[in-house]
């Protein structure tokens, strides 16, 4: 049965990460570790969508995958500067913390309720597989009615860690990201085409 890791166990896993293949969350301070979660901060980079340059988002469009830079743009906000997220706007952000999960720990990332109450939805693809290494991409969406001002360094989300039954190695397409990552549409198209021919 999967169980949520508590503060003491998280520290034990971090201790293992110091010398071997345990958990790494970095940079990290003790006050980020809660009774059964780790708070994470918003990083400096965002990916915003340029709506004017794309008719629709259709993954069967051959050019979509290779032209990703045409309709998505990376923006970097300096410390202390603001990023305004307008109602119904979706942008990609990332955690400031870089995490490395051992092959028997999985993570679910959730928004902190303080931000949820303002209408900010932090992440939709919330599960992170064992063995993942990188900054976690956050799908930031303003579901409220007022524009929200975001700053790098805000405590926006938390990691809930689970021990898995058995061990697993990460085989995803997002390897060692240090900021938000453009979606890997090529893999989706490949998967769809493969299944079409079956």
């Amino acid at each position, binding site marked *: 049965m999967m169980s949520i890791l508590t503060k003491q166990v998280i520290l034990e896993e971090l201790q293992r990460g110091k010398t071997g293949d345990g958990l790494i969350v*970095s940079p990290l301070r003790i006050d980020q570790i809660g009774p059964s979660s780790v708070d994470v901060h918003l990083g400096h980079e965002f990916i915003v969508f340029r709506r004017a340059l794309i008719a629709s988002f259709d993954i069967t469009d051959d050019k979509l995958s290779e032209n990703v830079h045409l309709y998505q743009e990376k923006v970097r906000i300096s410390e202390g*500067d603001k990023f305004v997220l307008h109602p119904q706007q979706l942008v990609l952000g990332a955690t*400031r913390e870089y995490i490395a999960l051992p092959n028997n720990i999985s993570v679910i990332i959730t928004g902190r309720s303080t931000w949820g109450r303002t209408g900010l939805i932090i992440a939709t693809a919330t599960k992170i597989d064992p063995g993942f290494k990188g900054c976690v991409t956050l799908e930031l969406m303003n579901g409220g009615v007022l524009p929200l001002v975001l700053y790098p360094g805000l405590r926006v989300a938390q990691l809930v860690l689970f021990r898995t039954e058995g061990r697993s190695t990460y085989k995803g397409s997002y*390897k*060692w990201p*240090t900021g938000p990552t453009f979606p890997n549409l090529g893999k989706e198209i490949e998967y769809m085409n493969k299944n079409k021919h079956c």
Partner: protein
Amino acid sequence: MPDLQIERIYHQIETELSVFSNQLKKLEVPNYPIKRCQEIIEKLIEKVEAYKDKIKLILDQKDDNPDEAVRKLITQIHNPLVRQDVKFLDWLRGAQTQNVPWSFIPCIEHLAQAIIPRHELLTYCANDYNYGITWSQSASSAPYPYTVLSLPRLHRTNILWHTIIGHELFHPRCVDFIKEHNEEALTKIYTQCEKAFRSKENKGLSRKLKEEQLDRITETTHVAWCRAMVELLCDMACVELFGPAAILATRAFAACSPIEEMPSPENNFYPPRLFRFEVVWKYSMDKKKLVAIYTKCQKSEAIDCFKQEMESFAELVSSSEGAALLEKHPLAKIAYGEVNRFLYRANVFVKRTLPDTIERWHSPKVLGQIPKLLERLQKGVPPNELVVRINKSAGKEKYETQSAELSAILIAGWIYETYWQKKYDQDAEIMPYETISRLLLKACEDIQFNA
């Protein structure tokens, strides 16, 4: 006639100012990793306004002396605008966040504040395949009062190469050394040149011509001495700061150029790379501390690769071919004879001039950090910090970290790079070079955050 000319020049300058203004406004977007860029834009906008006031003043007085008005319009407005101010457009564009290694900019700023505290830095990426630094003491020439540091655009995120900024940032400090020793060197160079010149047959030349020729030869030799001293001082500073990372970065950067190229007017009298390698290896590299890195790090393939790389460098410089090469050319022999005489003093000057506030590569702290940072990098984790202490006891929980030093990050990065170069073709699972760079950049970003 002057009236028509004034009109033409006035209209031209008006257009130039208007285009310059518009370009500046386009650059005003808050898209820079440091606030200074916006300040520069504001100052340039103020300057445009001052130019406009000056034009008005010149035109008001044009009837008294039209020729003088034309001269003033050209020398006081047009020339400084097109020769100096306009350069800022490229510099600012190249300094925008997306055009620079933004995670590394705070580290550059931090180093610059320590090494050249009175200089206000503007870092940008240029199309040139080179690192460079430009500054001026004179208010009438750009980039006064700023110091402009350029990085090669195609290697924007190649942080391992950016170790070379340790060399660039020392350039303005060399002025003091040259000032102190210039006269002594020049006198010796003149005497040597005279001796060499007299020994040659110069029949048929008048005394005046002979003197002129001797002066020219002395001047060229002196320029070569000066250039060599400055470059060597900066190389020494880079090695003093970053040790083996400086050596590997310089060697990697010079990989596509001939390392035995002799100084000449065509290459601005740059000393041969090989000679530069020999000098820093002999004077600046603390070999005992290098061995300490090999022994402190856990035995691994990465350390073996790094050791091999450093040993191959030691072998390259062991025969002193670079110095021998310079002996073959009579003027280079004179210039570099003088260079050699000053090398010990240069090394002392560098060590004394670099501030103690920067943690140097051979300090116990940095040497202690390198093995742990390398381990992190090998795990695919940014080498940004060391976990010092973890206490799991309920109620006494502790998680203490120590921020990584820049020199330790760069050395760990270079150790891993030597491994990567060897393994790239054989290991399908190895991180791409870009990933190594990104992890190192992330580490640099985090150390500023921790600070």
